[in-house]
């Protein structure tokens, strides 16, 4: 019995060591940059969510991020108080205890009344925007793109003179996923606005994998919907993919440094599966 306990303890230590050793997180390039993490489709409450959340917390020691953006499907299944605890508050406890704010978008598995849940920082709105230094984030409800939301988006985009304009929401406008694929309907409505008003980067979830799309009309598109769920092998060869990763859960770390956005994508086990730079779009209306 003692022998068995010893082996279990050794195994736990070994797994922990491997886990830390495998973490390929790069530190930020600049100390004055805007830094945030990206998680999508996270709210399962299962082991995968907790392991990704632990990687995320660990990565904050190397790459101190100021906030986390959530790309929807924040709480899967029932939404009782204990579900909020199990599927959000406990896995991200370390970050919440550090007062790192989360800014959520609604996914198709989310009750729109999540907008009233304070830790999601939605201010009671299905769609909203917020500012971080010279960056404006536009958070959309892609489940229900009605005329009100379109009008709001156009007004917010046209009023913003921020250097960086970043949009995020649940459904990807471009995707190589076999299960869902590109949201063409939504694309025809919002992409012309993104182009017109100089949105540089768009993040989405919904697909349970990571995909960096080849730039489309000057915009960098990322799908990062694998912070808990995984659709192993779902990425198809569509010609859209600059980099894809669908064999393990993942999340992203992002840094806005002047006119450059540095990004890195980490797997559930802490391996860096993608990294690179995006240069912001400079159009009329942006600084």
């Amino acid at each position, binding site marked *: 019995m003692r022998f068995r306990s010893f082996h279990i303890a050794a195994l736990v230590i070994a797994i922990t060591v491997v886990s830390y050793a495998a973490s390929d997180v790069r530190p930020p390039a600049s100390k004055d940059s805007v830094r945030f993490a990206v998680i999508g489709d996270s709210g399962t409450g299962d082991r995968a969510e907790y392991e990704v959340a632990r990687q995320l917390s660990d990565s904050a020691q190397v790459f101190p991020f100021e906030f986390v953006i959530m790309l929807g499907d924040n709480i899967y*299944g*029932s*939404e*009782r*108080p204990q*579900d*909020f605890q199990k599927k959000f508050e406990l896995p991200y406890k370390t970050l919440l205890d550090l007062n790192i704010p989360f800014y959520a978008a609604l*996914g*198709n*598995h989310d*009750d*729109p*009344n*999540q907008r*009233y*849940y*304070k*830790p999601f920082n939605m*201010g*009671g709105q299905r769609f909203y925007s917020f500012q971080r230094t010279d960056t404006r984030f536009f958070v959309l409800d*892609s*489940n*229900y*793109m*009605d*005329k*009100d939301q379109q009008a709001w988006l156009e007004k917010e985009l046209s009023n913003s003179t921020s250097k960086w304009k970043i949009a995020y929401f649940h*459904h990807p406008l471009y995707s190589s996923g076999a299960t*869902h*694929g590109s*949201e*063409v*309907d*939504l694309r*025809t*409505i919002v992409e012309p606005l993104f182009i017109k008003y100089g949105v540089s980067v768009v993040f989405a979830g919904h697909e349970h994998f990571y995909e960096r799309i080849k730039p489309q009309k000057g915009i960098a598109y990322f799908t990062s919907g694998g912070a808990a769920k995984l659709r192993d092998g779902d990425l198809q060869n569509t010609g859209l993919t600059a980099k894809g990763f669908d064999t393990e859960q993942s999340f992203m770390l992002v840094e806005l440094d002047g006119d450059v956005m540095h990004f890195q994508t980490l797997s559930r086990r802490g391996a860096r599966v993608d990294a690179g730079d995006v240069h912001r779009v400079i159009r009329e209306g942006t600084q």
Partner: protein
Amino acid sequence: MRILCAACLVTLSAVLISADHRQGQQPVNPAGAAALEFHNRVQAYLAIHHAAEGKVPNLGNTSDPAKISEREAALGLAIQALRPGAKAGDVFAPEEQPYLIKIVRDDFAKRSAKARKALIQELPKNLKVDVNMVYPTSLPLETFPGRLLRLLPDLPPELEYRIVGHHLLLRDVKANLIVDIIRDVVPTIPS
């Protein structure tokens, strides 16, 4: 001159009275009348929604998710109590339904089988939905296609359209309540 003016006034009055009379009997554009009826019924539902909201505590931002779910359930119960005999067609006015059905079917006809399937794939088959029923809280809401939404009549923020299976739903967003249904709107996807 005075006689001439009086005659003119009489003639003008006769013309106006005749115009008024004709207006009273003027044929009405049926599509417009149907849209107006739907609008009026939406407004009548909103009055119920607001009356129900007056009976439950206000909801602001809260860190306690219990307050959110309790308020949602309480609002749903209050609305159910205010429309106990609610049935399909109460808000989706019967005269408006053919127009709504045509809009949805025409839109779906332009979509590929894959795109149509994607719009209804997340929900279990044979999911039962009914008027005045709470939308199942553990199930996702299918994304409503944005282009179709542009074609349908506008709704106030308290209400939204949803597709469940082959049915078009009107859903109360804050109460998570199914307000009305038009069944078998969405055509079957050819295999």
